[in-house]
């Protein structure tokens, strides 16, 4: 019996979200009186997983898995879950984890709850709190199958260090037919993605045109943030669809969300509800976003943002 956690890495280094799901898995294991086993795919140094509560790592090493493949990854994790007698399987909510989770649920005949925001409210019946209606509400969801799959929302639990070391074993499951073959990947490697971001700097139509995004990118650079935008901006083609935040775009659950020149339509607010601290800069004091924000500046973005960038740069230099 164990809690199994799927940990994602990039170039052999475990992502922060993976350390967060490891922490969360440890929290569940403590509730259930059991241990945590992590599954890594071509993982490098597994020591950080031990620091966040993992007792054992099953490392699947296979060059064919360098490119993500949902069907093969799901088979590998399912095999690990069976080998370990896992009662609960925990995943992040990265694009890849969301891709493989339903395939894993079918393979394990397991109920799956996505977008979970906290530890189970009870282990038996197994009940978790998850967001629903694109962050406009929460659902208390019971999973009734023998094996439970939980997708933990980004930044929902945080990192919790635990004393211990993870024993690492190579694991070679049967991966079956891949079905889907990656031809090319187009990814800006120097940019922070919205899914990984602690801070998101987002802008809307108030910026008047794509040529004015330099100051937004500058702020993102200073804060190590991802850039995002409102729906009209991506519809106008000023920014790529992948940056569109909201009900029909991406949800954001960052620690800090800075919205510049975005009025705050209900669909946009739904997408950012899970962010912890929200800052709004808008020249319209009646903008609905101010009702959803923690901090606000009523002012012209073209005056406020350059000054804010300058002072944030100085602040970062003084506090790094």
């Amino acid at each position, binding site marked *: 019996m164990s809690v199994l956690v799927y940990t994602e890495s990039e170039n052999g280094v475990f992502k922060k979200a993976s350390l967060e799901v490891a922490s969360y898995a440890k929290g569940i294991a403590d509730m259930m009186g059991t241990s945590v086993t992590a599954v890594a795919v071509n993982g490098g140094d597994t020591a950080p997983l031990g620091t966040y509560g993992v007792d054992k790592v099953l490392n699947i090493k296979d060059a064919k898995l360098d490119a993500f493949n949902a*069907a093969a990854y799901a088979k590998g994790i399912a095999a690990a879950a069976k080998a370990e007698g896992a009662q609960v399987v925990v995943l992040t909510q990265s694009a890849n984890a969301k*891709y493989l989770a339903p395939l894993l649920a079918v393979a394990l005949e397991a109920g*799956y709850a996505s977008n979970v925001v906290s530890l189970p409210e009870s282990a038996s019946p197994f009940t978790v*709190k998850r967001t629903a209606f694109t962050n406009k509400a929460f*659902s208390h969801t019971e999973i009734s199958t023998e094996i439970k799959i939980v997708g933990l929302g980004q930044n929902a639990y945080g990192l919790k260090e635990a004393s211990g070391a993870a024993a690492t074993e190579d694991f070679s499951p049967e991966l079956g037919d891949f079905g889907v073959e990656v031809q090319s990947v187009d990814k800006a490697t120097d940019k922070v993605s919205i899914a990984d971001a602690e801070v998101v700097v987002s802008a809307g139509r108030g910026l008047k045109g794509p040529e004015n995004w330099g100051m937004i990118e500058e702020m993102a650079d200073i804060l190590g943030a991802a850039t995002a935008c409102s729906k009209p901006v991506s519809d106008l083609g000023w920014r790529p669809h992948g940056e569109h935040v909201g009900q029909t775009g991406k949800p954001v659950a960052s620690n800090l969300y800075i919205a510049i020149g975005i009025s705050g339509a209900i669909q946009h607010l739904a997408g950012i509800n899970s962010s912890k601290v929200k800052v709004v800069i808008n020249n319209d004091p009646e903008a609905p976003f101010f009702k959803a924000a923690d*901090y606000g500046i009523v002012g012209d973005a073209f005056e406020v943002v350059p000054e804010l960038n300058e002072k944030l740069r100085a602040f970062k230099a003084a506090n790094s």
Partner: protein
Amino acid sequence: MKILVCISHVPDTTSKINFTDGDTKFDTNGVQFVINPNDEFGLTRAMWFKEKQGASVDVINVGGPETEPTLRKALAIGADTAIRVNVEAKDGFQVAKELAKVVQDGGYDLVIAGRESIDYNGGMVPGMLAGLTGANFVNTCISLDVDGTAVTATREIDGGKETVKTSLPLVIGGQKGLVEESDLRIPNMRGIMMARKKPLSVVEPSGAGTETNAVSFEKPAPKGAVKLVETVDELIDLLHNEAKAI
């Protein structure tokens, strides 16, 4: 090519969300229901295949009679026939199992579903459907081309996109980008009139059970008032010392 488009019947994006019966049921009072936006992109792409490559397009929903106006809207947009599986949808696994039976009985080559519905946001139906039927699966799909049985698709990944090759039979989880928003179709009067005559069949469910159960709902706690500041220095100070966000 035989295409099935899965249509979720969801509250429109401007809906205020409330619950009844001791916070155990979604309050439909005054709520306008629409085709799930992610499904609408898929439906429009299916229309493209119909018009350019001669595909047939059926639409399907798992739900009660109240979802039929949404299916009729899909017919008015141009789908050939509609199917309603006559059972209240309670969780994604149940929906996927009911859909899988129809997909297998109907011999569909391509199933297009939205990557998630905007009500329960489970994000599980397309993947589970692929898993249950043994079809290939591409999630968060933003571009789809089919040549015979060969498929080239692009999907959104964190921080970028990825192009993949696969083959039919295929299930995709589609989203914005599959077609441009400006290409989405609004039913015209002729389409609405024709939709009235198109077949909408009601099939009885296979009786698939659920794996999860939404026991109750809760709305987020009301938000405190915004703290308006006059200067950027004040903002940086608050973000650092009060919010601990930088």
